[in-house]
């Protein structure tokens, strides 16, 4: 039993099954949680300083390396930011292919999270490897579903981790039509697995705990992951993000607040702002204030990504076109972009001079934005479960943290930036 009247400290050392190394430190006084903090022991990697002084053309390639799991999202965001700065409007073919490429990234990241990081918790296993005896079929299907995400990125982007063929203004190499047709066929086959995943995750929907927060996501009509206006529940904030979102720079993590409070980004936020991406699930009963609902929403998003990719790819005829370019640069070029990465909204913001050298860069990753919310959730959630055995308390807390799918390597990329 953990419940003691005196002050109690709990630490969960080295939380596994998340992308990175982190501890959770909690101080409990009676029934009140005094402190809950995610301690990160990776050093910062300072991507903002790495990009500085280099050519703006190198930024997509470099920032992709912030994270191997959402490398496509980082590339899309920085490509879009650079195009914004240069005032380039990519062709509609480029936009469509990018959208599909980005959704490939979302599929592979979500499937990995649902089946290999989250599912073992729910089924009471230690890892997916041990699940393979009893649930081997499920895992095989999961791998197939994940492969389709990887295939999309490979065919359009060149390789599954850190894609190569994207470029500011277009593509260096366009996929060939045969590959696209094959892809559509196999997407249609894999759709069944996505439906199964939704049913599976539906079973785990329970009303466990709720905490209402502000949310931020891209608002748009067609649920696109790379277009839309950055919005909270009520307001549209877009480029004014620095006025609303306050950044805190601790070593080594960066956190953010809006109006002094923590907020959520990610599947929950997207669902809250845009509704269900698949119409069928619009009326499903689920709590939009509970992080535990995220896993179900992720499953729905996988289905949406597959359907939307089929829709786009079926109607596309690849024509050859060169990337759009701009030869002359202004004295000051500033660009901003936001995309929905698997874990939530991702901001890239750059400024470069007329020689093309980047002199300011700021990147806000989804996990950096979620960190405070995770800590606040733990504070509210812990008193509910304090009566349980210690082992179960730890498991429940880990489940909560994992529901955000935090990516520690993303949250340690930062550098404090002063904009003049």
């Amino acid at each position, binding site marked *: 039993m953990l419940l003691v009247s005196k002050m109690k400290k709990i630490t969960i050392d080295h939380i*596994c099954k998340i*992308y990175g190394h982190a501890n959770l430190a909690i101080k409990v006084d009676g029934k009140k949680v005094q402190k809950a903090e995610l301690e990160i022991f990776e050093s910062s990697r300072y991507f903002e300083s790495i990009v500085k002084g280099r050519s703006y053309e190198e930024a997509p390639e470099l920032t992709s390396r912030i994270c191997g799991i959402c490398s496509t999202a980082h590339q899309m965001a920085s490509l879009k930011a650079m195009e914004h700065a240069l005032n380039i409007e990519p062709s509609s073919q480029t936009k469509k292919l990018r959208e599909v490429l980005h959704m490939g990234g979302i599929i592979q990241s979500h499937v990995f999270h649902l089946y290999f990081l989250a599912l073992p918790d729910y089924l009471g296993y230690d890892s997916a490897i041990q699940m*393979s005896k009893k649930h081997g079929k499920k895992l095989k299907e999961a791998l197939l579903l994940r492969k389709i995400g990887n295939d999309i990125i490979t065919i359009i982007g060149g390789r599954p981790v850190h894609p190569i*063929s994207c470029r500011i203004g277009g593509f260096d190499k366009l996929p060939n039509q045969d590959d696209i047709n094959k892809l559509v066929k196999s997407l249609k086959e894999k759709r069944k697995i996505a439906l199964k995943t939704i049913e599976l995750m539906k079973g785990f929907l329970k009303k466990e705990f709720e905490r209402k927060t502000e949310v931020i996501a891209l608002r748009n009509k067609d649920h696109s992951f790379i277009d839309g206006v950055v919005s909270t529940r009520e307001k549209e904030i877009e480029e004014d993000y620095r006025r609303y979102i306050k950044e805190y720079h601790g070593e080594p993590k960066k956190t953010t607040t809006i109006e002094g409070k923590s907020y959520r980004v990610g599947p929950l936020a997207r669902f809250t702002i845009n509704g269900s991406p698949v119409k069928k699930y619009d009326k499903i009963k689920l709590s939009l204030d509970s992080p535990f609902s995220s896993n179900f929403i992720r499953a729905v998003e996988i289905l949406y990504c597959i359907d939307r990719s089929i829709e786009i790819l079926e109607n596309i005829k690849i024509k050859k076109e060169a990337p759009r370019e701009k030869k002359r640069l202004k004295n000051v070029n500033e660009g901003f972009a936001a995309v929905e990465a698997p874990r939530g909204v991702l901001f890239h913001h750059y400024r470069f001079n007329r020689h093309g050298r980047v002199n300011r860069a700021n990147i806000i990753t989804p996990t950096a934005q979620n960190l405070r919310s995770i800590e606040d959730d733990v504070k509210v959630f812990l008193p509910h479960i304090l009566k349980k055995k210690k082992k179960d308390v730890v498991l429940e807390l880990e489940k909560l943290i994992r529901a955000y799918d935090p990516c520690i390597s993303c949250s340690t990329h930062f550098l404090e930036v002063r904009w003049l």
Partner: protein
Amino acid sequence: MKKTTKRSKKQKKLRIGNFWMAGCIGCLLEIFNVQDGTLDFMDYIDIIDFDLIQEKNIEGPFDVAFVEGAITNKKEEEELRKIRKESKILVALGSCACFGGISGLKNFVRGRPFGTAKPLYKFVKVDYRLRGCPISRKEFIELVKHLKRGLPYRENTSPVCTECPLKGDDCFLKKGIPCMGPITAAGCDAICMKNGQACEGCRGPIPNANISKLFQMFEKFGMKPRDIRKKFRKFAGNAFGE
């Protein structure tokens, strides 16, 4: 720690540990991607430590330890030394572990205000390197097969040009576009050139590379020396020379 996997008793498999330091997890994800169909992965190996996907990890001993990422602090250094003690073979995974890579770019910020990121070989003996950002899946499978049979694995020493499909006038260098192909080690199947990009040298230099000649060539293309230096150290730290 007491728990040993049952399968390892039936059949002798490689006991593997996967670790990561300061990196992007991309290389470990590529290992995971191997399951996309090229080899029935679990027949070859037993993963006993991989905290990305499992909770109860066994702390060695390992037949092979794969370590991704560069070393940026004392804690990582200690962990690396511990891994080295526990494992027969230690493999540096990806350019961050081999050269410092993109994580190591903070070493070049003037005054090093952000600390350093050093490659693994500065601290412990590294038996094999899998280079590239990210690693090549093909090379990884090749290495595992060699280790399974107890054979030594040899790194590729020929330049990327030997794998490059762009012949004659299609060559980037002939077009006046800076390409690191001639001095960079092959093994990646020239994947960048196949996708319309010039080589960025992510796999580090071949032995006896004629670096100064390429440097002069880039200068002729109109690049400033400091930009060329930046290009050379993008992925491979100081491996291409200071």
